[in-house]
């Protein structure tokens, strides 16, 4: 044997190795203890989060109905592409996803950036209303791109062609600015909320509570089982005070014009119809609107996004003479006032023009139907701005009516205090004269005029306009107090009769709106035309384009006293109140005919034309969920309203 030294190895060194190994094992044991005993809760949670994926079940928004339960806004199912974010998406995948969904990679990145703040386990909707091709792309790439999924979304289906668009509004993703406001603090980025109209003001009611489905997934995002499901709670449906038949009449009355129309029931404040022109199609907002389309809407000089019924602030023109009449009669000035109209009159060294020569002996009973400016200049001079402002303010001018629609504006009712506050200037007596015919600094909204004139015709009782029935609303959404919804202005019955009779003469031969006369209907009202720029300015600067034409107004009531309906119309560049009056007459006529049991336009048309065509894709029934079953697709019509075979029950004429 080649054995050399038989020297034994130092036992001390072997023992040292033994102890070294002991130390190593104790260290490893400590490592296990740290993770499995100390950290078991934390890691247990991480393990759960790893394998449980929460997929939202989106709650459909509540339907919006008219006062008779006819559907104004419905939902239709559509597919959205969903991006799950537990695993990061590589740039390579992102490009694939973008091309499959017909997006640019930048759009996808932008989308992901926007929701970067949301919790990681919350999926993001990448694209709404995907086409069958895009759906097929997602289905065929389930293995390569497990982070892509689809979700059924109940998309808003609005009446087409912008019908009632301003009233209804539209929905959109909650914006970053909105999320910073306290009332939106419960919402998460990506939530779809009402952005305008009743969709906004009753969002909390219309919006349901999303549910969720928890599924077990493996590391590649493949679904391995279902854990539990929290069903979505659909939003509550909202019945509006709007009468679809009247809304149709209002929309048709405005066709071809720019402006707004609003019809109220002055007995309750219920809004029966509300339309604004030009309009927009909110269906384009239900899916992501293109930037170009959005910019076009924003820059359109007709301001299609503005709800002019509550947001246009313009001088009311001669409609203001009714307010002047209330002030003049209640103050005891107008009864005895008789003026000689020679086509105008000098006040404070300046000539104020009347639109025609009304001759001598013009009293209030003639001044209202013929809209004599000279009479009201004189009345304004006698009353002074303080007394005018007192009555106008009492009748709600220069203030919001408090209608349950967002972004109502207040208008301006000038007074000495107002001028001092706003311009730090003294009120000039000459300014009062213009205010007398609703010019100068006075501006009102259509809803304000309907509210004020409807209140005057109702004997001084003004009821806050609203589009939702308070009794239908959940308690927390009801108006704070019933008292706040009513405003009383004492008007002497004699004066009330005088004014309403004079208003009735407006639509009689000799009145300014004789051509709007409705045979067999007690239709009263007041025309107005308001200058956009003064006549002097027109002459001085040679302005003659359509944009400088006067705005036409008409506020009509039926019947003349304690009316059931008040309709206010603003026709931009409508020149005269006469044409405006004829448009109001159409709406009033529709109302009266419906009350008398004539078949409405809707009933005559049948259901076919009041439906909307939509495109959609769906999974064919029979396929198990998640198997990517056969897809169907196509276009179909969804009824917007049910046709009513309305019995022509004879009803007494109002």
């Amino acid at each position, binding site marked *: *044997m*080649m*054995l*050399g*030294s*038989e*020297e*034994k*190895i*130092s*036992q001390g*060194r*072997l023992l*040292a*190795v*033994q102890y070294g*190994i*002991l130390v*190593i*094992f104790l*260290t*490893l*044991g400590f*490592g*296990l*203890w*740290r*993770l*499995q*005993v100390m*950290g*078991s809760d*934390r*890691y*247990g949670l*991480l*393990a*759960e989060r*790893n*394998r449980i994926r929460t997929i939202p079940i989106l709650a459909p928004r509540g339907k919006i109905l008219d006062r008779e339960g006819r559907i104004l806004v419905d939902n239709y199912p559509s597919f959205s592409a969903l991006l799950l974010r537990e*695993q*990061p998406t590589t740039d390579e995948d992102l490009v694939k996803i973008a091309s499959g969904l017909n997006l640019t990679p930048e759009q996808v990145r932008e989308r992901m950036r926007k929701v970067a703040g949301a919790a990681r386990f919350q999926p993001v909707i990448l694209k709404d209303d995907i086409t069958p091709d895009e759906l097929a792309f997602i289905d065929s790439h389930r293995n390569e791109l497990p982070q892509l999924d689809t979700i059924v979304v109940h998309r808003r289906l609005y009446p087409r062609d912008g019908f009632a668009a301003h009233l209804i509004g539209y929905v959109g993703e909650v914006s970053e600015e909105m999320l910073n406001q306290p009332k939106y603090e419960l919402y998460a980025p990506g939530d779809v909320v009402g952005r305008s109209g009743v969709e906004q003001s009753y969002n909390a009611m219309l919006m349901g509570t999303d549910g969720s489905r928890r599924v*077990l*997934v*493996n*590391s*590649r995002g493949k679904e*391995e089982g279902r854990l539990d499901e929290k069903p979505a709670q659909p939003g509550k449906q909202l019945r509006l005070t709007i009468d679809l038949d009247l809304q149709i009449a209002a929309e048709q009355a405005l066709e071809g014009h720019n402006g707004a129309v609003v019809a109220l029931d002055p007995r309750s404040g219920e809004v029966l119809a509300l339309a604004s022109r030009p309009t927009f199609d909110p269906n384009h907002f239900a899916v992501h609107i293109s930037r170009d389309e959005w910019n076009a809407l924003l820059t359109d000089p007709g301001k299609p996004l503005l709800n002019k019924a509550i947001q246009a602030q313009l001088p009311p023109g001669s409609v203001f003479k009714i307010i002047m009449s209330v002030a003049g009669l209640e103050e005891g000035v107008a009864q005895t006032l008789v003026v000689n109209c020679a086509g105008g009159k000098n006040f404070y060294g300046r000539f104020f023009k009347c639109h025609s020569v009304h001759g001598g002996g013009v009293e209030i009973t003639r001044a209202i139907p013929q809209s004599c400016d000279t009479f009201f200049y004189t009345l304004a001079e006698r009353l002074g701005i303080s007394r005018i402002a007192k009555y106008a303010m009492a009748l709600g001018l220069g203030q919001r009516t408090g209608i349950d629609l967002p972004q109502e504006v207040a208008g301006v009712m000038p007074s000495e205090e107002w001028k001092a506050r706003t311009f730090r200037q003294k009120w000039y007596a000459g300014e009062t004269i213009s205010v007398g015919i609703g010019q100068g600094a006075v501006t009102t909204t259509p809803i304000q005029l309907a509210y004020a004139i409807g209140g005057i015709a109702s004997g001084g009782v003004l009821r806050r306009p609203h589009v939702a029935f308070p009794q239908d609303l959940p308690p927390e959404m009801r108006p704070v107090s019933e008292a706040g919804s009513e405003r009383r202005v004492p008007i002497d019955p004699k004066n009330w009769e005088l004014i309403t009779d004079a208003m009735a003469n407006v639509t009689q031969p000799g009145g300014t709106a004789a051509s709007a006369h409705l045979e067999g209907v007690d239709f009263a009202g007041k025309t107005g035309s308001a200058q956009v720029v003064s006549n002097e300015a027109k002459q001085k600067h040679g302005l003659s384009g359509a944009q400088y034409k006067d705005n036409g107004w008409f506020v009509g009531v039926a019947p003349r006293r304690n009316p059931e309906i008040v309709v206010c119309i603003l026709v931009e560049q409508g020149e005269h109140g006469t044409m405006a009056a004829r448009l109001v007459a159409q709406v009033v006529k529709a109302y009266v005919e419906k009350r008398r049991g004539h078949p409405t336009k809707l009933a005559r048309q049948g259901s076919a034309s009041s439906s909307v065509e939509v495109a959609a894709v769906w999974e064919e029934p029979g396929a198990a969920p998640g198997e990517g079953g056969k897809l169907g697709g196509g276009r179909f019509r969804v009824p917007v309203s049910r046709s009513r075979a309305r019995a022509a029950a004879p009803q007494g004429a109002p």
Partner: protein
Amino acid sequence: MRRFLSYRDFDWLLLGFILLICALGVLEVYSTTFSTRFAGMHMKQTYWILVGLGLMFAVSLVDYHSLLERSHWLWIASVLALVAVLIIGHKVLGARRWIGLPGGIHFQPSEWVKLVVILALARYYHEMKQREATLADIAKTGLIAGIPMLLVLAQPDLGTALTYVPIFGMALFLGGLRLKHAVALGLLACAVGAGGWLFVLKDYQKERVHTFLNPESDPQGKGYQIQQALIAVGSGGIWGKGLTKGTQTQGEFLPMTHTDFAFASFAEEQGFVGACGVLLLYFVVLARLIQNAQTAPDRAGTFTVMGVVAVLAFHVLVNVGMVVRFMPVTGIPLPLMSYGGSSVLFMFLALGIVMNIRMRRFVN
């Protein structure tokens, strides 16, 4: 002289503990693979263990002295095999580690070479006359272990190459390394480490170290394995989730559950109690091996057994250390538990030599 050999002197107790570890390993391989494309791996593992047992008994019959005598030839053959791997080896994931043999068997020489290095060093120190290792001894030890190690490193296989370090260290330590030399070696190792980091290590290897230091920095990318292993082990808690019930393991969040991360799967499904039990088994095995080293008939026997101790302890330290985040991910399997034929055969071969030495402890 003829020696009388008896299987009474065979270390049945050690074998019992080894087989217990193997059984737990097979169970875990079953649990981690039964629902995957690797289903049936536990049977393969069982076959490897049976083959390993046969090999062990066979090796225990051949006198280890005859192996020692031929250790220089074995060493030369090993170096040639490693060179061959570099030239004709199968390239998998950018590394040449395997040689394909007829019959579809993949042969990984770097595992066996460890054993050859152990034997070669045992012989070297056996023949050493003085009590303390000189600088020349250190240099020669370094060459015996270093040349194969560099060849393995060139494959590149950092993990396996590192397993040569404890063999080298153990030999020097038992061979009477002096403190000042140890300090100098430590400094040299640091210098080599720094140089290696700058000039030799591949980017993916550097990333592993980076990821080890900061697994949360990129939990979905490079740190994924570490993070998932931590979650698996931590979520196992004290009692574990039960065999085949580990969500991390079964949901495939944890990678390489039946090979490198077998211990993490085991810790998830069997909990702190099970994991500590396995550690205890390894500790008992190591203690028993050291005892065998003490009773070995000669220096060569002691050195050989302690070489095996060094390899086994190092594997456990690095693999379990990786799972509990004390060590970076190196791809070193846990001996006897991780699936893998080469690893199992190596362990049983080494065990055969240990038995061989033990059976001859009363001879002479």
